[in-house]
């Protein structure tokens, strides 16, 4: 089975989140008073080519694993997120 990289992108803590603000205001007016704040982010899945992924799981090929990790980090940083306002976390399963 091929694996995937799950990338969560959220706005940096200090950056204004207009979406979260609007959702919060509707939640409040709908009576959900236990919610203190809302932040809206993005969730992206990358499906990894199984051949490379096989190489990755064979432990003796550490290079391939590092290379793939690096690549996903690079994709997250350069393509998927905007480092000026967003940060991301990667989970590979």
């Amino acid at each position, binding site marked *: 089975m091929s694996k995937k990289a799950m990338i969560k992108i959220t*706005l*940096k803590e*200090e*950056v*204004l*989140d*207009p979406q979260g*603000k*609007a959702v919060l*205001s509707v939640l409040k007016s709908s009576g959900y008073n236990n919610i203190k704040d809302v932040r809206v982010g993005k969730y992206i899945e990358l499906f990894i080519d199984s051949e490379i992924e096989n190489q990755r799981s064979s432990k003796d090929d550490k290079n391939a694993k590092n290379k793939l990790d690096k690549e996903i980090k690079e994709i997250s940083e350069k393509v998927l997120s*905007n480092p*000026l*306002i967003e940060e991301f976390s990667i989970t590979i399963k």
Partner: protein
Amino acid sequence: MAIKAKVKKENYKLFGLSLDEYKKISELLGREPDDFELGIFSAMWSEHCSYKSSKVYLKTLPVAGDNVIIGPGENAGVVDFGDGDVLIFKMESHNHPSFIEPFQGAATGVGGIMRDIFTMGARPIANLNSLRFGSCFNPKTPYYVSEVVKGIGFYGNCMGVPTVGGEVVFDECYNDNILVNAFTIGIAKKDGIFLSSKCEVGNVVVYVGSATGMDGMHGATMASEEFDSKKNKKRSTVQVGDPFTEKLLLEACLEAMDKKLIVSIQDMGAAGITSSSFEMADKSGHGMTINLDAFPLRTPNMTPIEIMLSESQERMLLACKKEDFESLNAIFDKWGLNCVKVGEVIDENIIRFNHHSKPYKILDVSTVVNGPAYNRPKRKPKYLQKILPIKINDYRIPKNLNEIAKRLITHPNIASKRPVFTQYDYTIGTNTVVPPGFSAAVLRVKGENKADKDSKNKGFLLNVGGNSRYTYLNPYMGGALAVVECARNIAACGGNPVAVTDCLNFASPEDPEVMWQFSEAVKGIKDAATKLKTPVISGNVSFYNETAKKEGDKPTISKIYPTPVIGMVGFIEDVNKTVTPYFKDEGDEIFLLGRLKGDLGGSLYMDLVHKDFCQKPADTDLDYEITLQNCIRLLINGGMIKSAADISEGGIFVALAESSITNPNKILGFTVDLNIKELSYAEVLFSEFEQAFIITSKSHSEQKLLKAIGDFNVNLLKIGVVSKDIMKINNTIELKSDIIKNGYESSLETVISAAHI
């Protein structure tokens, strides 16, 4: 005064002040400033807030006129539109933020200029913009174009303000410095104008809108890292625009204004609360108390100077009568917005800050506000010595002009901007009579009762533009041409130019050659605006559009060409009389109204064909221009012509071609016979910014037109007829209209969609 502490010496640099300015501040205070004071002074004495390098020149611009109610100095300029209505407009740059983060930079630029307009009591009714990007071959250009356009649409569309026009220009000189100039016009009642200068002693000072966060405080944060490195890791962030909140702020402000609950108001733009509080105090001749504890904060534990310098968007500062606060609060509460008392207007010319329930600082208003004014050294640039009148015989004129014609019409600077403006909502508001893509945007204004469909509809016309290459080649002419060209576009629709706003985009004023370009361009604007009776009633200056970079091992500075951009407003008594530039019917006769000089200096033709556009561009005769524009208005008002187009980039060929293929209902063509003594075909067809119009009229109307032109000293030359689907000029050009249309419409899409690859 001697400068003691070394740390502080570094501090003023981080805040962007010069040593002289630091000394001056110390002198004014009688001691060295502390960090809070330094922050305040640096913001108010910045180029952006103080206009310290440009003030002496801006003062020379004409600002008064028959229709002008308020000129420069307030948030925007105001002109009288008759029947108790006023139009309020301004253009502003957001260049640097848009280069750093093009989507948010462009979005907040649009948000900022709209706030300037509704601060004054006007409902924004139209946006325009002038965008400059690097060469379309630059790999980063598609990204900038698509993000900037998305950002402008995101903000304007959500606000419900139509974006009805603008320009998109590509030039290598903007590779490292894109320009985003945004224009907004609003409408208000003459007795419903709100100013920042009306605070009265005893008024409550009120903060409304979004909470304050760490947005856009570059200088301040860098400095604060310096003096408090433990607490403040890099907390400054890119400003994020929230058009939804701004829409609420707009409605809340207009509702409060309608109920006369606001005495004085100022939006928080650059330098946020600092500039709004000091300017409101200064302009009304009073002072304020400001309680820093009262500010709604998005980021906890902000320091006083961080609060003062935050550039969080969608906020306003206002003064209201004490007894009105509760009613005011109720309105902002209805719209779900903060509305907080932060101080009081006082009788002394000072601002008294409180923090943590204790007196914190006192600053003298006029000391802070009256920043320096420089008469910086200037020097005629060396490169201008090489700009000589063109010797056309030195260049080989290409045999195949068809090929050249095709390249011109598909050049991204000429080609249809449809892929851009369809991303903007231009039909909202139900006022757009002439949409983007033609000479000028035309909007009607709704009267009291429009059920009577035949009633006259007064309207106004909008246009923005400027040509930086012509300004580079002749800064004086470039400044004048920007004004003249806007007026031409408005005249070609039948409108009367009334007033202008300007965005002056230049490189560093500390470079004497740039300063010379600036002074010349302003002189050109001054002369043209004076002659055309279009006073400059608002505007903005953006310096430092340059980037240090390395070319190989050699450090160089990439500077933009001087880019004065003009935004012009014109009136038309009856929008039903508006003329559009495109041909209407086969068989109509085509005329050239005006005169041709055939000067190719600076033209796109010279650039594309001979890779050399650096020759002296043609001069514009302002007296002749006025006659010509009056003449075309007379013909339009008399209902005598069916289309009118001016001759700008790409020359007569492009004017004729565009007229054939931009009719929304059909494709047309033309058969033209054009021989001008002593001019080659290339000069006739491709020379730009000629003092002439291409007009059409139904057949057999030459005599009638000549009679109408009568006393005007303007030539009318019949040059051909509107035909079905072929573009034909003498024996030099023969093209199929549908092929040309296809290239014209798809060219820009190719540039933009490259961003997704």
